[in-house]
């Protein structure tokens, strides 16, 4: 196992996304109950320490920007960052409010080795606005400790199992106790005993450690060194996408609302790509400031993940939707997604998806989007003698069941009247028959004698006589 611990020291600040402050390096802090919880570099350089009083901090830097901590935003951001981390490995855990754990041994080859992964992680998280410190180790807790210490050991690109442990332990010995998850009191006791490095503790016999510091710490040290396994539950990716875009200026009309919709579709497309999913059905919502508005669903015959495909069908659907005059919020939720087989995501040399939706499915999607779900009818045939039950409307395009015998050519009419039309016997001129169809005592019992007849318009009809009288059931077109 090779663990990457990711520590986001500035997460509390970064959720506020103040570009101007980042750019100009203005001092900024996040406070929790009037104490500095997180400070950026220029604030620290000005002498502001974590845990300091806000008043003290302001006396040091009068122009200080400060925000109260927003834990909800932080945990939401972490959820998104888990998705980002999924790009690297399927084993991602949230270790702390500001730390992630990634198990990378399986994906090292794909990303070109430890050092490449570190670089790529840094730039990937940098792109979404987060600075990270990375620790690499043989155990999850050690990797987190390394991430917090900021000291990186030199790693070969593809370390072997025993090598991982050796380098990990070596680095652990030299790591300061400040980086461990210890209570301040315990840390102080260690300091009083002259123990400052992890190596100092590891050498102490375990039963001595247990006697003095209790079970919990001994367990922690064992997990740190890898003597004891330390299971972490991997986060399961959400298979439901739900995003809302709150606009600053209202959009008016269909053309304007398309822009934020396309933005959401892009986010969705990225999300789908990450999970190798395609969307089968989604719901758009366009709402006013008061919260009323329109919601409509769009269906796809095949799972789709390209922005252009999604927007093309959505555009058609929108033609029949009444949107509110002024929209402030655009929402997008997936209702049904399915995994894309490999065949959908083959890419050519230019990175374009090779297999796009086939025209036959695209036609279905377009017609359904514009005309509505009920405007299209497809059929399948069933094994039943009764004409009403020998076919059925369906939306599943499966292959035909070859075991069903179809009637001989010309024996049955091409047009069927649903329901059969009552006629007077005198209008029909019987030309052949009868054929008795008597079946279905278990549900809709039928006793009918079918005849071929010509009516007064010289039309060839398929008609039957039952207890109620004469009916025309179809036309031989």
């Amino acid at each position: 196992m090779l663990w990457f611990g990711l520590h986001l020291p500035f997460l509390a600040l970064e959720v506020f996304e103040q570009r101007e402050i980042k750019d100009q390096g203005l001092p900024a802090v996040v406070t929790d109950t009037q104490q500095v919880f997180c400070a950026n570099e220029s604030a620290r350089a000005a002498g502001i320490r974590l845990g300091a009083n806000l008043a003290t901090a302001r006396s040091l830097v009068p122009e200080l920007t400060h925000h109260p901590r927003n834990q909800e935003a932080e945990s939401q951001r972490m959820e998104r960052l888990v998705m980002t981390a999924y790009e690297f490995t399927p084993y991602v855990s949230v270790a702390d409010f500001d730390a992630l754990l990634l198990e990378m041994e399986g994906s090292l080859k794909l990303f070109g080795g430890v050092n490449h992964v570190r670089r790529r992680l840094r730039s990937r998280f940098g792109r979404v606005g987060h600075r990270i410190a990375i620790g690499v180790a043989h155990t999850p807790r050690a990797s987190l400790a390394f991430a917090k210490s900021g000291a990186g050991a030199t790693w070969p690109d593809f370390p072997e199992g025993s090598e991982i442990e050796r380098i990990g332990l070596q680095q652990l010995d030299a790591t300061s106790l400040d980086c461990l998850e210890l209570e301040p009191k315990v840390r102080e006791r260690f300091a009083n005993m002259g123990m400052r490095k992890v190596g100092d503790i590891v050498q102490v016999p375990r039963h001595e450690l247990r006697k003095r510091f209790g079970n919990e710490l001994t367990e922690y040290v064992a997990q740190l060194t890898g003597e004891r396994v330390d299971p972490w539950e991997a986060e399961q990716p959400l298979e439901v996408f739900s995003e809302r875009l709150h606009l600053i200026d209202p959009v008016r009309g269909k053309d304007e609302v398309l822009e934020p919709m396309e933005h959401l579709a892009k986010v969705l497309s990225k999300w789908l790509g990450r999970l190798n999913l395609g969307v089968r059905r989604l719901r758009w919502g366009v709402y006013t400031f008061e919260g009323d508005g329109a919601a409509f669903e769009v269906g796809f015959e095949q799972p789709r993940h390209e922005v252009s495909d999604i927007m093309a069908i959505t555009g058609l659907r929108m033609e029949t939707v009444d949107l509110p005059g002024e929209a402030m919020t655009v929402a997008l939720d997936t209702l049904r997604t399915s995994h894309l087989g490999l065949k959908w995501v083959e890419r050519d040399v230019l990175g374009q998806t090779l297999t796009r939706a086939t025209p036959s499915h695209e036609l279905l999607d377009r017609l359904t989007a514009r005309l509505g779900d009920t405007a299209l009818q497809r059929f399948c045939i069933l094994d039943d003698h009764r004409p009403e039950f020998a076919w059925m409307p369906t939306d599943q395009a499966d292959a035909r069941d070859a075991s069903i015998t179809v009637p001989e050519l010309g024996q049955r009419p091409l047009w069927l009247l649903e329901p059969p039309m009552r006629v007077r016997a005198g209008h029909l001129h019987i030309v052949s028959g009868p054929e008795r169809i008597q079946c279905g005592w278990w549900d809709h019992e039928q006793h009918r004698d079918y005849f071929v007849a010509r009516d007064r318009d010289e039309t060839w009809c398929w008609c039957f006589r039952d207890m109620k009288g004469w009916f025309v059931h179809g036309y031989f077109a």
Partner: protein
Amino acid sequence: MTLTASLLYDTGLWRARDLNGRQTASCDPSQSTGFSQLDELLVNGGWPRAALVEVLCDRYGVGELRLLASGLTRSVRDAYWTVLINPPCVPYAPAFQALGINVHELMVVHPSTHQEALWSFEEVIVSGATQTVLAWLSENDLQDKQLRRIQAKSKEHEVFSVLFRPLSVEQLPSAAELRLKIERQTIDRKLVLSIIKRRGGWRVADLEIDLPWGPTATDSQRTRQLLADWERTRRDMKAVTV
């Protein structure tokens, strides 16, 4: 295929000497209508590959689909759907399957307005997923330029489009490449047709073709006898119960 042949096949040119029907070298057997009398009268010896065809008839069940059967069942490219737009009745799936159309590839569109019908007609033609479209449009709203557009799109995207119209429009001009009028079907399963408009020839009246399959008037004498007997029995039964 020689250059001349391909020119004749692809471009829609025809030789003057082929006027009125003689089959040319460019004739494609897969196009055949299945009726030799009709093939002889049509350019390329069969249904046009890509065009709008009008079929004029006032009733259903006179053999209108049997007339088109060979055009419905041929398979072109990787086209998939056979589409019926606004049909007058329910297509009886087992019978369509027997005809050779896979029912899973049969799609019926029920547009709610004329505009929607036209839109779906065009959408279906240009989709590249359809080989045949049969449509029944609202005659009151249908305009000449709409027909022209459908004809042009069918040509461009190589789709065999069929539009069913009432007999009353016979005298009106139309952009359709081929216009057929079904006069009647006789008791011995013959279809009497008129060609109102065709490429490379004049109007043909009262062409009689044999429908290859369908119900026949077999033993109608015996059937009628049977029915008469039943009626009598029923009356007798009624009399007894009364």
